[in-house]
């Protein structure tokens, strides 16, 4: 199996905008993920450790990035035989309630055995809050 011929280094992956982050979403994520850290739920605790307010879980942003990659591979390129083999995410800046996050990027690498996507999560000010590298292969 080979990657689609139109896919090359630099191919753009459209930025898709997510609904603004809500407190309810963070609560649902804290429950579903089992992350008990109060800095994502309790304004008082967040401020007591020097944060401007409640911040979103880094892994929620990582989930947005992984989902954007899955949609690109499965639904846009329609090559679902290619599976995610490695996901690397780096949390660069904080995300707050009300932030509107967009996820997109480029195709970084294409070979017979690998497709690598470089994705970014940006907030409404254009600031990059999380970056992700997704390596797909035929596992």
């Amino acid at each position: 199996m080979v990657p689609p011929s139109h896919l090359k280094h630099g191919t753009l992956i459209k930025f898709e905008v997510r609904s603004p982050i809500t407190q309810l979403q963070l609560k649902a994520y804290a429950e579903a993920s089992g992350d008990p850290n109060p800095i994502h739920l309790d304004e008082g605790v967040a401020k007591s450790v020097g944060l401007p307010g409640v911040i979103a879980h880094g892994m929620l942003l990582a989930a947005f990035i992984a989902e954007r990659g899955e949609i690109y591979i499965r639904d846009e390129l329609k090559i679902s035989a290619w599976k995610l083999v490695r996901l690397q995410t780096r949390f660069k800046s904080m995300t707050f309630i009300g932030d509107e996050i967009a996820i997109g990027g480029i195709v970084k690498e294409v070979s017979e055995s690998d497709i690598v996507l470089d994705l970014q999560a940006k907030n409404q000010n254009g600031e990059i809050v999380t970056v992700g590298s997704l390596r797909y292969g035929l596992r």
Partner: protein
Amino acid sequence: MENKADFKGRVGEKAGPYEERISADHLEKFCQAIGSVNRGEASPTFLTTFRRGEFDLFGKLGLNLSKVLHAEQEYRYEGKIITGDLVSYETELVQALRKSGASGAMHFLIFETGFKVTRGGTDVGQVASARTTIIART
């Protein structure tokens, strides 16, 4: 007073193994929380629900959870996780680096976790691994 905590000597400490049975309900709740399509198998970052080893090690190291920031997360996938799977995992502190800053010490700690699956009574072996980097202030 500066806190002299140093975690280099704690490298190699492990937590687990832990076991968890995967329910359709949990997979669905996770998908709903991240606004993702439920594709009938665990989404890539569902592995974050198995951080008990990390949290237990934070406790053993005496870290204050509200002063722990997640810096990087890496996952490698060799297989999938589906409803009914029994996931077994163990976490190890593999690296510790201390940096002194203006507002106290910052510790860069790296944890590794391996995930094994038993499916329908059959040992499937390792399906994924995780490498978590956190920054802890003491």
